[in-house]
């Protein structure tokens, strides 16, 4: 059984990646925060007796299911909002919060390097958001969460072969997008050549 400290350390380790991963999937910062918090709470409440070694897989599975629940709710909500959209008010924009725009400092020193790096990451994030859901899931779990093929397949509920196919397609698609922007290094150029 994992202790509260072990749970806290685990969540501290994964929360940022989980948040970004959810943002790429749902494309809504506030919803992503809610989903990640929900997933954290579900993990703590439903699996208090599990060892900490099982937490990465459990947490990812909970996160994926919570995202699916969000999409289901969103589908129903969209139906009603489109019906009543003509009654909605158009005036006023969201208030800007200074804390929202305050980013933690980048470690690299050169401003031009920082800018280029930031642009590259922006491109990757956009490309990742445009990927089909299954490809994005497979890529994030396999390469970002560093899970093996069997674990990724178990979380996604598909075969290991499917995971490999999704991952390969995702990497090729991302390499292609980066290539169009003239970004990426040697391995990506090889992949682009193949695509």
């Amino acid at each position, binding site marked *: *059984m*994992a*202790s*509260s400290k072990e*749970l*806290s350390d685990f*969540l*501290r380790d994964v*929360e*940022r*990646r989980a*948040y*970004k991963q959810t943002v790429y999937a749902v494309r809504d*910062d506030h919803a992503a*925060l809610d989903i*990640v*918090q929900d997933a*954290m*709470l579900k*993990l*703590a*409440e439903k699996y*208090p*007796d599990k060892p900490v070694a099982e937490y990465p897989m459990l947490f990812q599975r909970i996160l994926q299911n919570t995202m699916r629940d969000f999409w289901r709710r969103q589908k129903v909500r969209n139906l009603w909002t489109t019906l009543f959209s003509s009654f909605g008010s158009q005036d006023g924009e969201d208030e800007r*919060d200074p*804390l*929202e*725009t*305050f*980013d*933690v400092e*980048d470690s690299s020193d050169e401003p031009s390097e920082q800018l280029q*790096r930031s642009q*590259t*990451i922006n491109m*990757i*994030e956009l490309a*990742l958001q445009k990927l089909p859901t299954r490809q994005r899931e497979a*890529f994030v779990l*396999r*390469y*970002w969460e560093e899970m093996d093929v069997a674990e990724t397949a178990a979380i996604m509920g598909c075969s290991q072969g499917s995971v490999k196919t999704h*991952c*390969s397609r*995702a*990497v*090729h698609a*991302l*390499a292609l997008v980066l290539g169009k922007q003239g970004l*990426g*290094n040697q*391995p*990506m150029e*090889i*992949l682009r050549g193949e695509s």
Partner: protein
Amino acid sequence: MITQDHTDHTAIEDSAAKEIAGLLDARAQQLSMRTLQTLEQGRSRAVNAHANKTASHQVHADGSLSSWLSWSAHPRAMSVGLLCAALVVGLTLSQQINQHHENSDAFLLGAELPPEAFVDRGFEPWLNAKLELPSSQ
């Protein structure tokens, strides 16, 4: 040869994917303060919930009555329990009905009258009338 090519290809894909994942990781470290605070609040709530759950597990481990009541917190176990109870009740009822039928059959077969006599609605009034006749005479 083909296997070698496949291995090389997988290695290239892995290398490219890891490079992209590294860049994404760097971006994940640059979240706004507001987002980090919200995540921290969520984490604290989860850790508190975990601590409460762990404490309640330890209380129940002593075999007190509350450990039995804690089954209500497990919907699947409750569903299985209810299903089993329904099965037992159903089996008992069907056995009782069968037993009743067996008794009826034994009564019919062991009676002096033919089974048709019990079905005939006029038989009982006729029998009563027959029995009353000698006493009235």
